[in-house]
């Protein structure tokens, strides 16, 4: 202890105290103050940036889920539309088929009646024609037969025979 006191230098103590205090004040003004505030600012900035990023991420997620929802809805709508269209197509086809069937049947019916009419008309025409033909043939035959007396008689006789046979 005595040795320590003997070695203690008052001058060095005074210098150290003065220089250290000067250093303390100079560093406070020119170093620690600006450094600590800059570091603080930077940390605040980082904190804010992280919060912002988190917020942005959340928003992105929201947007994405919205998008998904919209997409899903669109898909469902598309599916519904397609289904409707398909159904419509089928009904249209079946309707068309039915109608065509009906139409065809009608046409067939008409054709049949037309054919039948035509047929009867043709038959009557033919009958008339045949009647006329047979009359004219008969006329010609009769004319030819009747030009000869004998033959007339022969015919009458034959006709008579036939009638009686009937």
């Amino acid at each position: 202890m005595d040795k320590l006191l003997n070695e203690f230098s008052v001058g060095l103590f005074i210098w150290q105290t003065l220089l250290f205090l000067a250093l303390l004040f100079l560093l406070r003004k020119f170093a620690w103050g600006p450094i600590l505030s800059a570091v603080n600012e930077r940390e605040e900035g980082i904190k804010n940036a992280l919060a912002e990023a988190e917020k942005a991420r959340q928003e992105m997620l929201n947007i994405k889920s919205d998008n998904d929802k919209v997409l899903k809805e669109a898909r469902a709508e598309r599916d519904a539309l397609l289904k409707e269209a398909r159904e419509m197509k089928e009904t249209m086809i079946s309707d068309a088929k039915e109608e065509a069937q009906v139409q065809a049947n009608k046409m067939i019916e008409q054709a049949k009646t037309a054919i039948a009419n035509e047929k009867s008309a043709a038959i009557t025409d033919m009958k008339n024609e045949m009647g006329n033909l047979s009359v004219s043939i008969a006329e010609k035959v009769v004319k030819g037969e009747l030009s000869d007396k004998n033959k007339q008689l022969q015919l009458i006789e034959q006709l008579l025979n036939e009638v009686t046979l009937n």
Partner: protein
Amino acid sequence: MYRKLLNFLSIFIFIFSLNSFAQDHGHDTHKKEENNHKVEQHTNSHNKELTLKEQIKEDIRHHLLDSHDFHIWQNISFPLPIILWDNGLHIFSSSKFHHGESVAESKGSYYAISHGNGHIYKTDASGAIHLNEKGFEANEKPLDLSITKSVAMIMITGLLLLLLFGGLAKSYAKNGGIGKGPGRLLEPIVLYIRDEIAIPNIGKKYYKKYMNYLLTVFFFIWFVNLFGLTPLGVNITGNIAITFSLAILTYLITTFTAKKDYWKHIFWMPGVPVPMKIILAPIELLGTFIKPFALMIRLYANMKAGHVVLMSIIGLMFLFKSWIGSPLSFGLAFGLSILELLVAALQAYIFTVLSALYFGSAAEEHADH
């Protein structure tokens, strides 16, 4: 893991410091003899007749003391200004002392440097320094405000710190909030002191006003310790005047920023019976002085011990003069230097942490016990 390592190291250092104290003690008795010896033959004193061993001891002892000239290498040294207050200002160059070998005359007074503690004493024209019965100098002592080697190194360290951190502070504005330059290397340490020392010990609410002191004290002690490990060989923090000054600042800051709660816990400890309060008050009051005192001694002893051990081992290299011993002590000195690098930071850290702890107890507001 880190804490365990620290514990281990501090025990290790403690053992080393015990060793060195023992050695130091050895020096003491020797030195007194030397002193007597030297004072008698002061005028033509020189230690040519000293053996190598004694010379090494003398070198170590001399190195541990502050010096009035800046010794660099063997005979290369430059003088520093001597400023004395002795019924008037005396300013002259330390070259007048011829490295402490001769008497300096200024304005009719004679001064000589004692070989015992390196201080300047007022003497007669012959430069004789008388010793008292304890072996200490009995001459009149002027107030010595000289720029000694330590003061010069403190100034250099201060300038270095100002340049480093001033530059760092400026670079933030220039570089968009990101530090640049050599100071940036130290920015993590600034943050460490704030986040791991100041905030946990003092609390988020009050730590800001103590930051300036904590940062300054940490970097000052650390840098000065590191300078002590360079071949410049300054032993600043191993000087009791320096650690006393630092400890007193911690004490004053603690005392003058203390809140009501701090004093209440000293003089009227809450939550204990009245007789205990009366017993505790003087103990607590004493504690407020012991804490900074321990700070002072811890830093001083650790740094001085480190220097003593390191220099002793370096000295051993020259003493052994053998192919085995000298490389061995070189290896030891090398290992120890690396350890001292750690101790330099560790002691700065411990001083800062304990200061923060004391500030914390002063600033803290207790809810109630």
